[in-house]
């Protein structure tokens, strides 16, 4: 089949994939109740949101590329780094950013990719296995199309725009292409590993449960990497600068390490005067090795992607099952256990569940210095940051109810039980984040007492905010359809709900800030009273519901 035909067919498969991810995953098969116009609106809105998220990522990549190469002109002075080493750091950081962002994006969609069973649709058609693999591969690439293209072109333009050399451009371009291949390989590798070991390999032994937990952590790593690279790119360059200063004699080791190899080679091509031949030789060899590895990875991905696309349809061996005993718990606990189990098998939900903890760890470590020096101001700001990320959870936990809604909505679940169970899970994740903050505070000898008192008090406010979000979400969920819980399906509703949560969680903190200026001795009482009042109000409201 010609490439143009493959590309055309892949567009149909991609359209089906997008629709399936809305219909089966997000709406749980509930769409038929809607009229054709409403379904079209929902699909259009999901498509628009996909384009918006792609464009946002594209803009981010482009801005980062230009800002990065602007620093290599010498306009921004990175302490301790020559312009040669600044370029190495910029290119390496950019590549790390692309690697994690693309992996993060790929992992988020890989569940839809598998559940759509694209191979099952394509296989009966008169297509060769090679064509099927190619179509699936192109379909997978379509998920990243604009960001992938931008990541390849934007740094090149930025490099030449800020006076790069003729030879440096191709090195940079190859480096970015290698990075893109590595990110797709990481996605497919994790998906293959995950679906063979976790999703299609059940089991209930402690060992299998532990393995599932470990795989879940693996899933979250690219999300963590993306988050870290996006938020702390400059911090990474500073780390690199510190390394370069402290271990200057070991810099040649860095030449062997991806993505620094490409950074060094591009830097040597840009500033050829005074280059040591030995390190130049090392960087050329290591770049060649990584490029060969990328070529091999590309072939592996093309051959493997078909397996991943068929993972959901794979036949299973019969397992030895000792008994059919099930445990019964209170409904609220049953919902929490179900949510955790579902999240542990979905990369997008797993990363969202862990995001508050990861964010707290990263922020706490990087800002621990400021917390100890600036005290209460910083701590209160810190609590807003953690809370705002924690409050991303309720809409996502509600969207979990969209899965299999065409069955689960026939179960006798009370709205109140649903709200309280999801509030509790959100609060647990906040407590986990608070624990991380506490450990960091202990390690850096920060103000542990303040972290404890304000952190625990803020829990009431977080619970109140989560409950408020959940009341709005369940009101819509019960009236419209579970698809509304999914932020990608209805961004406008989501923004309103998220804003409400943010207002509720910020109110006691703003009150405490105000008290800090006018009556510093009343900071904690004001904070406590406001947080408790919010919590009490929402609980009274929930108590009045059926």
């Amino acid at each position, binding site marked *: 089949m010609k490439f143009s035909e493959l590309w055309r067919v892949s567009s149909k498969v991609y359209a089906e994939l997008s629709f399936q991810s809305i219909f089966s995953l997000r709406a749980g098969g509930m769409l038929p109740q809607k009229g054709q116009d409403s379904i079209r609106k929902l699909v259009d809105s999901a498509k628009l949101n996909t384009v918006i998220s792609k464009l946002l990522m594209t803009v981010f990549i482009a801005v980062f590329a230009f800002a990065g190469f602007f620093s290599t002109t010498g306009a921004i002075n990175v302490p301790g780094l020559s312009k040669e080493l600044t370029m190495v750091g910029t290119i390496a950081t950019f590549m790390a950013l692309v690697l994690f962002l693309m992996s993060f994006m790929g992992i988020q969609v890989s569940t839809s990719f598998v559940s759509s069973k694209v191979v099952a649709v394509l296989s009966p058609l008169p297509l060769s296995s090679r064509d099927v693999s190619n179509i699936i591969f192109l379909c997978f690439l379509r998920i990243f199309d604009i960001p992938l293209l931008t990541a390849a072109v934007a740094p090149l333009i930025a490099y030449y725009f800020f006076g790069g050399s003729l030879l440096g451009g191709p090195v940079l371009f190859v480096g970015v292409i290698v990075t893109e291949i590595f990110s797709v390989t990481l996605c497919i590798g994790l998906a293959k590993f995950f679906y063979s070991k976790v999703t299609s390999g059940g089991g209930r032994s402690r060992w299998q449960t532990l393995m599932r937990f470990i795989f879940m952590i693996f899933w979250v790593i690219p999300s963590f990497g993306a988050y870290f690279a996006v938020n702390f790119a400059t911090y990474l360059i500073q780390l690199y600068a510190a390394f370069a200063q402290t271990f200057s004699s070991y810099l040649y080791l860095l030449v062997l390490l991806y993505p620094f190899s490409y950074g060094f080679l591009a830097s040597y091509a840009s500033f050829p005067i005074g280059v040591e031949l030995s390190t130049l030789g090392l960087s050329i060899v290591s770049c060649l090795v990584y490029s060969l590895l990328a070529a091999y990875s590309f072939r592996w991905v093309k051959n493997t992607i078909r397996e991943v696309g068929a993972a959901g349809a794979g036949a299973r061996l019969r397992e030895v*099952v000792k008994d059919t005993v099930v445990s019964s718990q209170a409904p609220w606990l049953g919902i929490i256990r179900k949510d955790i189990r579902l999240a542990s098998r979905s990369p997008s939900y797993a990363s969202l569940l862990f995001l508050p903890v990861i964010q707290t760890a990263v922020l706490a470590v990087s800002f621990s210095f400021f917390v100890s020096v600036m005290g209460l101001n910083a701590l209160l700001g810190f609590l807003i940051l953690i809370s705002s990320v924690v409050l991303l959870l309720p809409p996502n936990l509600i969207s979990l109810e969209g899965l299999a809604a065409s069955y689960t909505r026939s179960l006798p679940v009370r709205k109140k039980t649903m709200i309280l169970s999801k509030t509790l899970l959100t609060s647990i994740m906040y407590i986990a984040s608070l624990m991380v903050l506490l450990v960091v505070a202990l390690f850096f000898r920060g103000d542990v007492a303040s972290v404890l008192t304000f952190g625990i008090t803020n829990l009431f406010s977080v619970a109140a905010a989560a409950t408020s979000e959940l009341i709005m979400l369940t009101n819509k969920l019960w009236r419209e359809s579970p698809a509304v819980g999914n932020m990608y399906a209805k961004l406008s509703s989501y923004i309103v709900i998220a804003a409400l949560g943010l207002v509720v969680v910020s109110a006691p903190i703003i009150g405490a800030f105000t008290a800090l200026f006018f009556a510093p001795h009343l900071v904690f009482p004001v904070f406590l009273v406001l947080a408790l009042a919010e919590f009490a109000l929402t609980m009274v409201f929930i108590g009045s519901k059926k």
Partner: protein
Amino acid sequence: MQEIGVRVSGLVVNYGSFIAVDNVSFTVKVGEIYGLLGPNGAGKTSTLKVIVGLYEPSAGAIEIFNTPISDEVAAKSQIGYVPEEVILLDSLTPREFLEFVVSIRRLDRDAVNSRLQRLTSAFELKQYFDTPIAALSMGNKQKVAITAALLHEPRLLVLDEPLIGLDARSSKILKELITFHAKKGGAVIFSTHIMEVAEKLCTRVGIINRGKIVGEGTVAELRMLVKSAEGSLEDIFLKVTEQEAGLQDIIEALEEE
């Protein structure tokens, strides 16, 4: 007087401007197996989904053992439902899925486990109990849904095409279970395209076409309706739904090709 298990009055279901169910009314008494028959897209599944509380009706009222469906928790607690298209929580195993259902329904652990053991043994589900639902065949997914529907010994069974995908053995067991459930004082409402099954199993049938009930009663009563003394339920169905006319011509035209 026989107790009413399901009372549907003046039910209307709209999808945008399309009217899927148009002023449908019927009752299912305790001890009855009520078959809902109709061509594709006639409104059977929409009717059943409203009965189990999945869809909101545009108009009309539904009562489950005198409990209005608006009293969601009380009404749904009395229903065991098997959907037409079995979309369950695919990444969970049957054990995990049933644990969720059992928790939501607040079932007693010992009672439920003894019942579960019998059901899994009857439907040969034990070997798949720790395999993710995503990896199960359609028939086995159907068995998981049937098990979940029967676990709490519901008073009303709502089964939407429950025999599709089931092997002969499981199909036979399910039919026996349905009959037993009705004899024990439960009510059953189920949709099917298999006329022979409906004819053998159902106490009464309702034939729905283009959203309206066009015929209702026992098979004998329906025969009287179409003025045919010997016709099978399939013949009656084709007559009532006006699908008989020209059918022979279509078959002949296809055979000529």
